[in-house]
């Protein structure tokens, strides 16, 4: 548009320039023709000069002046001609100017139109553009959202599958370590010794590597698990309860790790977590009073979670001896501990000697009981002594030390003392631990009868080998399975016995024996 403008202006200037030129020329040749107005006249061709015409008429009449006049006419004619030419020229310019003006006008209008048009077009363009864009975007949104939905459902499927596979993998791990556990055997050789066990695993160190890998993984969750190195090459691993574990043979260390891993995996199961939760709720509801009902039995049968074991044991023991506690008073145990002896001094001295002999022979491989200065040893001595003073008829019976020792790992000395009281005077008949172990021996006979009835294969086998079942089982009864099952299981046996007494013990025994029942 500006170009058009400039061109227009230039044209206008040009026409003005010509007008000025004409005016100057006229001034120079006809100084009297000041009034001549190009603009007002418009057309130069129609212009007539009266002065010039009268002057030419006069020259024709005077001969004298004829040459002069002729010259003048000549020059006049020339001038007229020139004027005419200029007029024509001017006329041309005028026309040109007009045309240019018109053109200018037209261009201005056109510019206006264009301006308007461009404005409109901008508006239209904008709207269209936005509409298109919007449509495109909408379609994109629709497309992406459907794609997202697809992805989402695929993701859900995949994560379900991952969960499934992880669960499967966990199960495999658990079963794998369990399987490795069963690879232990006692080789048949001239010297039948329980120490001569071996673990045979095929595949070189594949299993060692695998188990160590699983162990590293598990130790991230439970750092109390042993490491392979802590069990072998002269080192010893101290477990949760204080027992030292050390193995001369790598394969046996591996076997031990497998048992630990299996336990670890089991504790990680959702079922176990739910079980712990149920216990938590139960404890909150029961306010530490346990009623022997279906719910309690079901919970106890599935095991008392280690976090609640102390609490539950304490409550169960308390429930058993609450009448004693009322009878003897609050400070009974403390008084027994500080007492210098009873009337029957000599009797308790015998027990005292026997207790001293057994203190270090109770859990020699446990860090709390391994030397005379250990806290556990001192507590054990105090508890056993207090018990002898409390019940001098029963006194100290070997086996009580194992029971008390085990209890001390979870309970205070006073609770341990009360457990011994509950065990010997409440759970079992008082003849159980007496001077000739009458009750315990009677139970052996009951057990033998039951075994003959329920596990005839085993009974026959024992008969053939001339082995008295009581050889194996008496200590199971007297020490509550202390050395009959791996220690980790021991608290479970304890748990089971507390609410149900002797029947359970016999049931557990039959269960244990059933494992060794030869196949029919």
């Amino acid at each position, binding site marked *: 548009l500006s170009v058009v403008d400039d061109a227009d202006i230039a044209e206008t200037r040009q026409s003005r320039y010509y007008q000025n030129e004409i005016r100057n020329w006229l001034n120079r040749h006809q100084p009297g023709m000041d009034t001549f107005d190009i603009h007002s006249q418009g057309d130069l061709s129609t212009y007539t000069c009266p002065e010039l015409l009268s002057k030419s008429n006069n020259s024709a009449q005077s001969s004298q002046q004829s040459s002069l006049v002729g010259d003048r006419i000549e020059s006049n004619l020339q001038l007229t001609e020139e004027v005419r030419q200029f007029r024509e020229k001017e006329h041309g310019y005028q026309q040109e100017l007009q045309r240019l003006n018109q053109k200018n006008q037209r261009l201005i209008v056109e510019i206006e139109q264009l301006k308007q048009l461009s404005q409109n077009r901008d508006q239209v363009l904008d709207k269209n553009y936005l509409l298109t864009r919007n449509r495109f975007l909408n379609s994109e949104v629709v497309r992406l959202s459907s794609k997202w939905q697809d992805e989402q459902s695929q993701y859900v499927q995949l994560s379900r599958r991952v969960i499934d596979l992880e669960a499967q993998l966990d199960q495999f791990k658990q079963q794998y370590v369990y399987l490795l556990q069963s690879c232990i055997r006692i080789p048949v050789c001239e*010297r039948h010794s329980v120490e001569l066990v071996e673990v045979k695993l095929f595949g070189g160190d594949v299993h060692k590597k695998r188990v160590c890998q699983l162990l590293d993984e598990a130790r991230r969750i439970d750092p109390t698990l042993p490491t392979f190195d802590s069990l072998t090459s002269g080192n010893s691993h101290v477990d949760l309860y204080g027992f030292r574990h050390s193995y001369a043979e790598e394969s046996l260390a591996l076997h031990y790790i497998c048992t630990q891993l299996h336990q670890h995996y089991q504790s990680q199961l959702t079922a176990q977590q739910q079980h712990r939760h149920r216990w938590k709720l139960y404890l909150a509801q029961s306010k530490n009073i346990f009623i022997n009902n279906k719910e309690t039995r079901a919970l106890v049968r599935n095991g008392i979670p280690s976090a609640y074991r102390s609490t539950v044991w304490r409550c169960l023991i308390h429930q058993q001896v609450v009448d004693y506690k009322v009878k003897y008073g609050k400070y009974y145990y403390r008084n027994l501990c500080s007492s210098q002896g009873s009337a029957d001094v000599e009797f308790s001295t015998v027990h005292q000697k026997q207790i001293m002999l057994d203190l270090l022979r109770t859990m020699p491989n446990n860090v709390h009981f391994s030397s005379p200065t250990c806290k556990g040893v001192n507590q054990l001595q105090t508890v056993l002594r207090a018990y002898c003073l409390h019940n001098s008829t029963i006194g100290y019976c*070997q086996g009580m030390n194992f029971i008390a020792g085990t209890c001390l790992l979870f309970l205070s000395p006073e609770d341990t003392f009360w457990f011994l009281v509950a065990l010997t005077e409440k759970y079992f008949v008082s003849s159980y631990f007496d001077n000739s172990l009458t009750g315990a021996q009677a139970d052996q006979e009951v057990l033998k009868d039951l075994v003959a009835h329920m596990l005839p294969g085993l009974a026959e086998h024992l008969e053939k080998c001339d082995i008295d079942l009581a050889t194996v089982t*008496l200590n199971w009864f007297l020490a509550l399975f202390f050395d009959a099952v791996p220690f980790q299981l021991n608290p479970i046996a304890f748990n089971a016995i507390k609410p149900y007494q002797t029947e359970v013990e016999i049931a557990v025994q039959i269960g244990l024996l059933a494992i060794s029942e030869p196949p029919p």
Partner: protein
Amino acid sequence: MAAGPYNYSYIFKYIIIGDMGVGKSCLLHQFTEKKFMADCPHTIGVEFGTRIIEVSGQKIKLQIWDTAGQERFRAVTRSYYRGAAGALMVYDITRRSTYNHLSSWLTDARNLTNPNTVIFLIGNKSDLDAQRDVTYEEAKAFADENGLTFLECSAKTGENVEDAFLETARKIYQNIQDGSLDLNQADSGVQPKQLPRTTPAGGGDAKQCNC
């Protein structure tokens, strides 16, 4: 078959008796495993060990019953005396009380076993000579008086342990040889090895109970 696990001529049954903490289980362990068991829980009731030895070219399997020493367990362990060919009666040379109780143990052994049972007296913990409470001579006199063979041993160092078990076996074997021990007697404590039941096809040793 060459020397296999079942290749022995007799089974001799032994019992080990004596007071609490004299080292009965450690003696047994030293004899069967040839090492000292430093930290082992004490025995409740009865425990069991075996080893095959050789006497006069005969392989003999010793079946050894290790008993709990606490007085009240005697009621239980007494039933194991029956049918013992050898009885190792142990006291602790550093504790006189364990020596003093020997007569009571001897009474039990004499009453509950057969007359041919070889009773061997062992004074254990001979490595703790500085703490000795019972002299060798005194115990030797007691043994001679009662017709017992006597040795001082150390389950810790292994000194004389092998001898005590082997000497007892030799005496029993001698009793068999000279006919004073009747193998047909139910409580002799000696079983001639059961011949393996051969299959009709004669397929060698059939598997038997391995105790």
